[in-house]
């Protein structure tokens, strides 16, 4: 029995289809949504969501953080932003990483919360670059 996997960004629905398993990057470690999983909500870090049919990965999407809502029949991923891994632009991501790095230098003295957000973003972009490099 498959589960319904949905990946939704604020702008649109990217994926909505049945699959056997979806592995997603939870903030405290990767986690797989499978049929009859106990209902669960979690925070996602930046990373790759892999959608499985049988034992093969059919789709890979990069999500830059977000939330996931799992029920026995459904898995909804609310991504801050999402791109198919094949469409990641490594150059683009590298440029963004540089931007964030310089922003971090500027705000080195300001509030801790902002630094934390920036570091979170940097980790997410690094994960994006890694995912991009692994495919190209």
């Amino acid at each position, binding site marked *: 029995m498959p589960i319904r996997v*949905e990946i*939704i*960004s*604020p*702008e*649109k*629905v990217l994926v909505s289809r049945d699959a056997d398993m979806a592995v997603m990057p*939870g*903030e*405290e470690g990767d*986690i797989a949504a499978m049929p009859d999983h*106990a*209902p*669960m*909500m*979690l*925070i996602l870090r930046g990373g790759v969501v892999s959608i499985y049919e049988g034992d093969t990965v059919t789709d890979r999407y990069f999500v830059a953080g977000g*939330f996931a*809502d799992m*029920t*026995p*029949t*459904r898995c*909804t991923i*609310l991504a*801050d932003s999402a791109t198919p891994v094949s469409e990641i632009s490594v150059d683009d991501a590298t440029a963004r990483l540089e931007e964030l790095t310089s922003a971090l230098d500027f705000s080195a003295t300001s509030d801790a919360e902002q630094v934390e957000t920036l570091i979170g973003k940097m980790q997410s972009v690094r994960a994006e670059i890694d995912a991009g490099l692994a495919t190209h």
Partner: protein
Amino acid sequence: MASLKELRARITSVKSTKKITSAMKMVAAAKLRRAQLHAEAAHPYADAMRRMLGELAASMAGQDGLPRLMTGTGRDQVHLLIPVTSDRGLAGGFNSNVNRTTRQTVRHLQAEGKIVKILPVGRKGADFLAREFADLIIERIPGSSGKEVPFSAASDLGSRVTKMLAAGEFDVCTVIYNRFRSVMSQVPTHMQLIPLELDEADAGQPAAGADQAQYEFEPDEEKLLARLLPRNLQVQIYAAMLDSAAGEQGARMTAMDNATRNAGKAIDRLSQKYNRTRQANITNELMEIISGASAV
């Protein structure tokens, strides 16, 4: 009576006005379709988010120390209003409806002795409110000016509101925007963001498909809620902005359609008058010639 030359000039000018309004109507129709698609595409995210929030709120009900974004500061003294309008006019009553509603709300709140702060989105609203409440406006936020609304616009504004709340700069936050009901009708609507108003239906109802089983939360409820709430704020603002953008095009289309029709009527009327005048002139000249000839 207007001379023939004057009438001819009027007709030409109305004709070119008509060309402009019908072109604007066409442009608005094309933009409306895109804006509507955009607004609809954003629904699933907002729906899923509301469902998750409802679930969380239900499981945390009765606990102390809920985040401020949900419960507000517990006071009701300082109100932050966010009226959403467009950057451009020529859209019928679209902007003035929101502006009038905002003005009423401000006056009403002030009469109750509350402090009001305004954070207007879009130039039309800011200009209007600056005439009367210039000292209440904190900052003007640029509107979409007919282009697609990027999510970053809403997320920036959302973070701003979150920061202001953390700094204790207001107690209650309300967005006033045109809700898109149909192409013909946009309803000025108040949407209270803080304290959060969850629909009864969302809060009580278990998510579809979940057979009453208790949700697990990772890392835990509080952390999730702390992350979900600011996001929800942004999404709500985004939804309001998208609705407003679609409504703007709808209102402009309707207004321009009316203007085109009116211009058509004016052209008919003027042409008739022109023809009558021309004929009267000819008759006059003929009579002068005939009476001149018979006098000789």
